[in-house]
């Protein structure tokens, strides 16, 4: 018994000595790691910080090593690896001495990875308003923006507004916050419009207009101020264009089609949003009963420049306009074109969606530039694929994937980490994230293919209704003893008046000149019965 006690005492003493020796050792190693970090030897620093984090008996040392490990990895451009450790710091909560710095680290990684989904979701989950009040206001603004964006996507509009309105006007994301607030007002306006609540509809759209105008006013409408705004705010030039487009949409929602047309026309030709503006301008002119201009806007949209765009609704709009001006043959021709080019996609899309493919199988549509013929995604029509690739989220997915692939390669190439546990752990982190990304991207593709399928299906039934209406109208024409051919009913309207000498007139003769795109106007035969002019 005594022997056993002695043995235990010796063992305890021994362990104590070992522990003391180890504590000394980790503290020295921590100092060494800090020196490496300060001399920009981040690979060596990361390795040592990792060892200290794993072996130090001192919680304070472990905490410091954990945060600086994340920092070292960030400096090495290994954002996903850095994320793992910033996240560990952050979710440890305010008890962790580097809690707020961890939160700021997460924001930096989100920016570097262009991630506006996963990291914001994590921050939102552990959002601590009391603690975050101690953060740098500019960092907090970014957190508020990301969380606001996340909540907006979840359609939690009032919660999202609370975060977005808390963004500091000096923050680089201030205009983005204003923009999201305005978009929320537009969404609410559309919602009230559906519920036929006119007063609230107008109120929401008015608030949206005020906010969009506020974003445009950040330019000061003069060169020097605009350049300052460009240097201060993230992506402000793009936001100016988007605000213009959305001002047009807000006026359209309010029923002010004249102003809507004005703002749609301000979208620069050949810019990213021009196709959307042309299509919506077509609707705006249709609502103003300016059918010639509406057909003109669609004429550009249907030019070879936009040949690979997914625009099924524009064909339905075109057929509807022809229907309104009693050009039934032309309306039928457009609907036939819709059948040939869009309706025929339905069986293939349906087949893909019902094939029970795992999400990862869909990801190649976004992430691969060239698809093998054996890949089921190779069957997706070009128009549909292009419509998916246009989304800014696709760019983010691709950036994320490329970043992960580069990081996996970089981890394998750091000599200091050969055979270390750090390398194994980081490789594992990146691999897990890559698989997750494939699943997320695949899910995104699948949801969008489903959306395109439903869109075409919806317009197909609309096309059928228009065809039925055409048949009814043609029957009425015959009953009234009128010629079914529009050529024999009414005269062609004269060519449009040239507004002034700053305009050039060109007749369109079946060839598209690039400089004429966006300037087309139709004149049509006045073919409706009773139209004597």
């Amino acid at each position: 018994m005594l022997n056993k006690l002695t043995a235990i005492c010796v063992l305890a003493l021994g362990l104590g000595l070992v522990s003391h020796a180890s504590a000394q050792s980790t503290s020295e190693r921590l100092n060494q790691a800090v020196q490496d970090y300060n001399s920009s030897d981040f690979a060596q620093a990361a390795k040592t910080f990792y060892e200290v984090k794993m072996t130090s008996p001192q919680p304070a040392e472990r905490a410091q090593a954990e945060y600086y490990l994340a920092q070292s990895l960030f400096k090495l451009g290994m954002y996903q690896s850095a994320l793992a450790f910033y996240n560990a710091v952050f979710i440890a909560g305010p008890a962790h001495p580097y809690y707020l710095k961890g939160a700021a680290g997460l924001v930096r990684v989100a920016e570097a990875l262009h991630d506006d989904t996963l990291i914001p979701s994590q921050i939102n989950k552990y959002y601590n308003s009391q603690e975050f009040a101690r953060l740098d206001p500019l960092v907090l603004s970014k957190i508020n923006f990301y969380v606001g964006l996340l909540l907006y996507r979840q359609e939690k509009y009032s919660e999202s507004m609370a975060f977005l309105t808390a963004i500091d006007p000096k923050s680089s994301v201030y205009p983005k916050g204003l923009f999201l607030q305005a978009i929320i007002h537009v969404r609410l306006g559309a919602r009230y419009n559906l519920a036929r609540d006119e007063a609230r509809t107008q109120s929401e759209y008015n608030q949206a207009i005020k906010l969009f105008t506020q974003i445009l006013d950040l330019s000061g409408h003069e060169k020097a101020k605009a350049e300052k705004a460009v240097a201060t705010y993230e992506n402000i030039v793009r936001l100016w264009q988007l605000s213009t487009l959305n001002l047009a949409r807000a006026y359209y929602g309010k029923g002010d089609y004249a102003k809507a047309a004005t703002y749609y026309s301000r979208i620069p030709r050949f810019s990213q949003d021009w196709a959307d503006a042309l299509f919506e301008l077509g609707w705006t002119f249709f609502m103003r009963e300016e059918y010639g201009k509406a057909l003109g806007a669609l004429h550009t949209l249907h030019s070879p420049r936009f040949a690979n765009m997914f625009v099924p609704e524009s064909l339905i709009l075109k057929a509807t306009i022809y229907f309104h001006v009693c050009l039934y043959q032309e309306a039928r021709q457009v609907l036939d074109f819709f059948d040939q080019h869009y309706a025929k996609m339905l069986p293939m899309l349906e087949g893909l969606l019902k094939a029970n493919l795992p999400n990862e199988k869909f990801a190649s549509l976004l992430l691969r530039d060239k698809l093998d013929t054996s890949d089921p995604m190779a069957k997706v029509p070009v128009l549909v694929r292009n419509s998916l690739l246009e989304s800014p989220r696709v760019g983010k997915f691709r950036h994320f994937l490329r970043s992960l692939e580069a990081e996996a390669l970089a981890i394998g190439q750091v000599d200091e980490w050969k055979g270390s546990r750090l390398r194994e752990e980081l490789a594992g982190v990146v691999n897990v994230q890559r698989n997750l990304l494939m699943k997320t991207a695949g899910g995104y593709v699948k949801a969008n293919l489903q959306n395109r399928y439903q869109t075409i299906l919806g317009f197909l039934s609309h096309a059928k209704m228009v065809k039925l209406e055409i048949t009814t109208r043609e029957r009425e024409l015959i009953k009234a003893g009128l010629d079914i051919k529009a050529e024999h009913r009414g005269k062609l309207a004269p060519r449009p008046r040239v507004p002034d000498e700053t305009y050039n007139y060109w007749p369109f003769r079946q060839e598209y000149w690039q400089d004429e795109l966006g300037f087309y106007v139709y004149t049509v035969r006045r073919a409706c019965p009773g139209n004597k002019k």
Partner: protein
Amino acid sequence: MKSITMAVLLLAAPVVLAQSPNERVHALQKRDYSVKNKIEVSGFFGLSVDDIFTQHYSGVLAIDYHLDEAFALEFTWLSCKLPFYMGSKVADNPSAYTGSWFRKGHSYTDAYDNLKDAQLSPSNADLAMISNYWGLNVEFSPIYGKFSFFNWGLVRADFYVTVGGGLVTTEYMRPDNTWVDTGSYFMGNFGLGLRVFLKRWFAIRLDMRDFTFAAKVEGEAGPSGTTTETKIRSTLFVMLGVSFLFGGETPVEIWSPY
């Protein structure tokens, strides 16, 4: 008017977009090369092309003010010889002088030499050559067009007519190779031109101008002395040059947020 299509910029339209007889499509395009209120400074090299006996080479400076997109006023200085420089006087003939280097370029054609070989001589009026001309023209551009060469780009063009008049000095060379200054008088001109815009501020110009003047020269010597002969002369110039445009409206820049 779409003038000459060298290549179609975009491909033919899909079937659904084929025009039906019940519709017409027009492009009402905002001009992207407005010339209104712009000042255009042009330099040309000119060549006479239709004279039987004479051949002119000239430099031309033109300054246009564009009143609007269609009308412009143009000041022109056409010079075949250094202005006001008369060479060396011939002692026995105060109106004659020698020297040729001061002319930028001239020659009498083979027709003149052939006549001389045949002991014949054209009238002095036919030999009168323009030395300098200063004038004002009015330019009218009723026709515009554009060109595309194999999809390399698009250039725009204005076709114009021009008419005007001004002061001209002329000279002719006698058989003894001395020059005779005929003095200065009015000269009218009309012409056609093409201005091809390569940039908003830069264009190439091609002009054809017919200059008409009444050449007053020494006639044949008679009993009562030397007579004065007057003949209406017309000289067609082809002029090729470049022009630079200044002022007018400045294009909208990116910072002007829509």
